[in-house]
Every structure is written in C-alpha cells, then in structure tokens.
C-alpha cells in the first residue's frame, strides 16, 4: 500500500468523524498557536533589543576609561599623562584593527539661540565620533576634518537641543542658524534625528502626536545622544579649555572621554590588544586605564532573550505533548471501534505494516491539520497580544517559526500514533474478524 492511499483513507476517516477529529486536534491547535506566538514574541523582543544595541553603538563600541591606580604603582602615577590626544594619535597610528577613534573634551556652557537659552554640556569631538556613536542626520552634515583642522565654529546639535532652542523650526530650517555658546557664535551645520527605542516610538504613535509622553520620567538610553551639542575638538580646546589650564597644550590636555570603534568583530580581542599596547607606550607603562566594552552588557541582554524563549517554548512544548496524548487517546478509541475493519483488511491481504502505516498516517494527518488550524489561531492570538500590550515590542511571526511549530506538531502526531498503530498492526486476523 502506498502512502497516498494511506493518506486518502486517513483523511476520509477524519472527515467521517469531524467533531471527534476536531476534539482530538484541539490540544495540537492550542500547542501550535502558543508555540508560534511565543516564538513571535521573542523574535519581536530580540529585534527590538538588537536595534537598540545597534543604536547605542553596537558591540564595536569601545571606550577607554580611567582606572584607579594600584597601591604598588602609586609612586609612578605622575609619570603617566593620563588620557590625551596623543593616545588617540597613537591608536590611529599603531592599532590598524581600530577603524575609528575620537577623543572628547567636555565643557558646561551657556547656550542661546536668541529666542531661548539654557546651560548645557558641550562636547568637542573628532569626525569619527559620528561613526562610532552611529549617528544619523535629520538635516545638514556631520563635522568634518576641515572643521577640526581649522578650528571652525561649527556645531551639530541633537534633536532635543534643536527643539529646545528653536521649538517652531524643522531640522532643515535649524541648519544655518547661529547658536551662541558662552556668547561665541557657532553655525549649526547639522541636526541629528530623534533617537528612541522601538517601544517608545510605538507608544508615541498610539498616544497620538498631541499628548505629552511620560518618557521623561523613564530611563532613556538615548538621552545623551538626543541632547548632543558637538563641536570640533580643536575649537573646543582653543575657545573654551585652553585658558583654564595655561600649562596644557592641545596634545597634553586630559581628555574627558576617548571612544573607539573596532573595525571587524572577528578580530575584537586582537584589536583590544593593539589598543592596550599603544596606550601602554603613551602612558609610560602605568596601568591607569581600562577598556570598557559592551560584551557583558549585551551578553546579559542575549541571555535574557534566551531565557524568555526557553521558558515560553517549554510551556508551548508541554501543551503540544499534551495535544499528542489527546491524539493517542482518540486513535486508541478509534482502533477498538475498527477492529473488524482491520480484520477485513488483513483478510484481503493487508500486512501488519500496511495497517501500521494507515494508522500512523491518520495520526499525523490529525496533527498536521491541527497544526494548520493552530497557525490560523496564532494570527488571532498575536492580534490579541498586541491589543493587550501595545507598548511592548510587537510580536514578529516568521516563516521559520511557523514551519518549526507545525513540524513539531507533526512529530507529536507521529510519536503518539506509534503505540495505537503497533496495537492495530498486531491484531490477529481471525480474532479481529470475529470481533463484534
């Protein structure tokens, strides 16, 4: 007997007992729909988290930070110049695995557009800063080598600053305006877009444009990016920092931050080693710096995604197994109802194997149809989930998730069909024919 015939028999059997078949499918329907929904939920969370990781600079983002010097080394502390522009130059020159370097000087200053004013932190950076921090543009341009070389009074402002100082203007109109920093005029050359997390974006869309969001009260990882006021490093030094410490030159002034971007993640460790070697020279062997990476932070996020997926998957798996047991139960009942039929089939020449295939195909068919119904149910379930929690990461249904879930259901149908099929195939033809 070929599989197609077995399938025909199985399907007609299912069609002949529609309600009973539906009941036996129910467990599979629920199992598959919850498995698909769980996978979709975790995929949504995963995408949201990854987008977030990208926006904060990704795994490539490395920051050079100061470190408490150890007691044994304390006497040598003076030997090290600390983090300076020379570090950045040394890294550019001798750490080829690092693609971008940006030193930073910070300065609290009064800012004014002529309409509004405030006190904010200004940062002097290299053009590489925009790559390392993964900035985008709403309008205008980033700072360039030319800005740094000539010490031009150019400034790139974040979305929050643009709104604060020019509340009525669009980013395009803000470009070209004059921003007064401690009464020195700077030309706005670029405006950054509004950075926000996926869930905040959704919350804003749902709340509508007019309503004030409660975002200010919450931790916003993009606050610093949105409140950026970025000027060329050299301009920062000469306009604001040079006078404060007459002894310092632009090369020797201690930096407020030093950030890097690793060129290729495949060579992450080697890149960090190159940086350490370069900095060890500029710091004259004094161990007063550390490299801060996102590895642990990201690992923790990945681990929590995995945990969510695992626990959700486990629950869904349990319900699929329960669904499989439901199928087995119905199949056993249907076999004891069909002993005589099986006897007749055996008498006309069916082998045990033919009966086994027939029963197992029927069991798999029930599971498969249940799985397909489960896919339909999952679409509904996901809509309900979106209604219940509109602020969270939207669930994303993937083809892979659907195929996996239905495949799993078919597997459950197969395994729960084995025992009934074995029992049916081992029936004695004479006893089965006499069965009433």
């Amino acid at each position, binding site marked *: 007997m070929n599989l197609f015939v077995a399938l025909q028999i199985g399907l007609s059997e299912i069609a002949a007992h529609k309600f009973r078949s539906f009941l036996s499918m129910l467990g599979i329907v629920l199992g598959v729909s919850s498995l698909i929904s769980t996978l979709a939920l975790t995929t949504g969370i995963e995408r949201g988290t990854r987008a977030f990781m990208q926006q904060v600079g990704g795994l490539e983002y490395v920051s050079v930070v100061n470190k408490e010097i150890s007691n044994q080394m304390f006497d040598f502390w003076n030997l090290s110049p600390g983090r300076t522009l020379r570090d950045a130059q040394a890294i550019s020159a001798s750490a080829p695995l690092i693609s971008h370097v940006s030193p930073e000087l910070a300065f609290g200053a009064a800012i004014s557009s002529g309409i509004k004013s405030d006190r904010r932190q200004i940062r002097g950076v290299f053009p590489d800063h925009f790559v390392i921090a993964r900035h985008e543009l709403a309008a205008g341009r980033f700072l360039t080598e030319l800005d740094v070389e000539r010490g031009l009074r150019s400034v790139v402002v974040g979305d929050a600053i643009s709104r604060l100082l020019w509340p009525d203007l669009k980013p395009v109109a803000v470009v070209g305006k004059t921003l007064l920093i401690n009464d020195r005029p700077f030309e706005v050359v670029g405006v950054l877009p509004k950075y926000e997390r996926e869930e905040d974006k959704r919350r804003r869309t749902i709340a509508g444009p007019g309503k004030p969001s409660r975002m200010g009260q919450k931790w916003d990882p993009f606050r610093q990016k949105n409140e950026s006021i970025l000027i060329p490093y050299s301009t920062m030094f000469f306009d604001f920092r040079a006078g404060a410490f007459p002894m310092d030159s632009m090369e020797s002034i201690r930096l407020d931050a030093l950030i890097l971007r690793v060129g290729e993640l495949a060579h992450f460790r080697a890149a960090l080693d190159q940086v350490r070697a370069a900095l060890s020279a500029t710091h004259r062997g004094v161990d007063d710096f550390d490299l801060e990476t996102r590895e642990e932070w990201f690992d923790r996020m990945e681990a929590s995604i995995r945990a969510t997926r695992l626990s959700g998957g486990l629950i869904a798996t349990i319900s699929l197994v329960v669904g499989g047991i439901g199928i087995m139960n119905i199949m056993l009942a249907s076999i004891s109802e069909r002993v005589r039929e099986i006897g007749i089939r055996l*008498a*006309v020449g*069916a082998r045990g194997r033919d009966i086994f295939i027939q029963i197992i195909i029927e069991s798999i068919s029930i599971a498969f149809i249940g799985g397909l119904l489960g896919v339909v149910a999952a679409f509904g379930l996901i809509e309900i989930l979106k209604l219940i929690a509109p602020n969270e990461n939207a669930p994303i249904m993937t083809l892979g998730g659907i195929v996996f879930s239905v495949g799993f259901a078919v597997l459950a149908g197969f395994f729960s069909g084995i025992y009934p099929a074995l029992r049916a195939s081992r029936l004695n033809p004479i006893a089965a024919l006499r069965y009433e």
Partner: protein
Amino acid sequence: MPLVHLEGVSKFYRVGDQEIRALDSVDLQIEEGEFVSIVGPSGSGKSTLMHLLGCLDAPTSGRMQICGNDLSSASQNRLADVRNREIGFVFQSFNLLAKLDVVQNIELPLVYSGLPSAERRRRAEQVARDVGLGDRMANRPIQLSGGQCQRVAIGRALVNNPRIIFADEPTGNLDSVTGKMILDMFRDLNASGKTIVLVTHDSDIAAVSRRVIEIHDGKIRREYRP
C-alpha cells in the same frame, strides 16, 4: 503438484492449562479446478481448517503447502502476501466495509497489491459488472440487499484473480432463493476453472460440490462424492 497439500497438519490452542486440539494431524490434497465442500458440526474444526487453508493462520505442526508456497511455519507477512495474491474469501456475514461503496469494497485487495489507482478502479468496475452489480457501483452496503452484498463480497474475492476461493457458510445469512443464486455463481466460477472450497454445516449445500470432506473432532472422518 496439488494446489493444497496438507501432511499431518495439527493446530492446538491453549485455553488456560487445557490444550484444545482443533485439528489433529490432517492429510488433505486439493487439485486445481476442484469444487470441495468441508462439512461438520460446529466445533468440529472445520473453521480452523479453513483458516489454515486460507492462510489466516499457520499450523502448530505438520507440512502445509498452498499454491506452491510452503507455509508450514510462515510469518504473518508471508501469509498476508499469499492471501492477497492466491486466495479470495467470502464470509457468512459478508464483511464489507460500510464506509466504502461497491467499487471501493471490490477494489480493497488491489490496494494492498500495490496497483496504480486508475488500474484498480478499472478492474474493480469490470468485476462489479461481472457479478451483476453494474448499476449499483456507487451504492454503500447498507443500501444493498443481502444477496447483493454477497455478490460484492464475491467480486472482492475475485478481483485479484486468485486460484482458490474460500467461502465460509456463504448462504447462511440469505434466504433460500438468494442462497441458491449465490451457490450457482460458485458453480459457474468452478466451471470456468476456479478452485472453490466451501465450508458449511449443511449437507444439502455441500451437495452442489463434487467432493465432500467431513470433519469431526479435528479429524477427517470421511470423504465422498455426491
């Protein structure tokens, strides 16, 4: 080479600690083209004999050859193959599948011999016409009379073109007129060369055959030609 060759064939059943000798060293030969009746009261062992001859069961001891196959200690799968190719069954209670129509019921043995679907259908329809059910092909057994049901069963027994047909009390559930028609069909089949083995407790029915084997207490008591 006879079609059926039994030599000292026994079949024992165990019920509790008691051993029941349903068949006790039976010797029997049936040649191709014969029309044989097996008669005996209930419990005589004639059903057991038919089950063995029909390859529904293997003997406990002795040599058994059916259509050239040595089935003395054959596996269930081997028996199923011989049943499928060489043997057709007609039962007292018809044993049709209620879910299937006439053609599908007749088609059933072909399903297990692996014929393509179109060929199966063609042959089953031809056989349905041969047994006189050409106008009832799409009916289910419940819509047929007893005689028509038995014709379907005979059609099913014939469809694989087997060499032997076993009929177990084929007229038991039929009125005498219909019963006679069914017996006539067997006689016609025999005339066209099929080997027929008829199991019955009624010696009048056995009289249509050309050789009668009487079973009593698991042994062949006598043989005669009516």
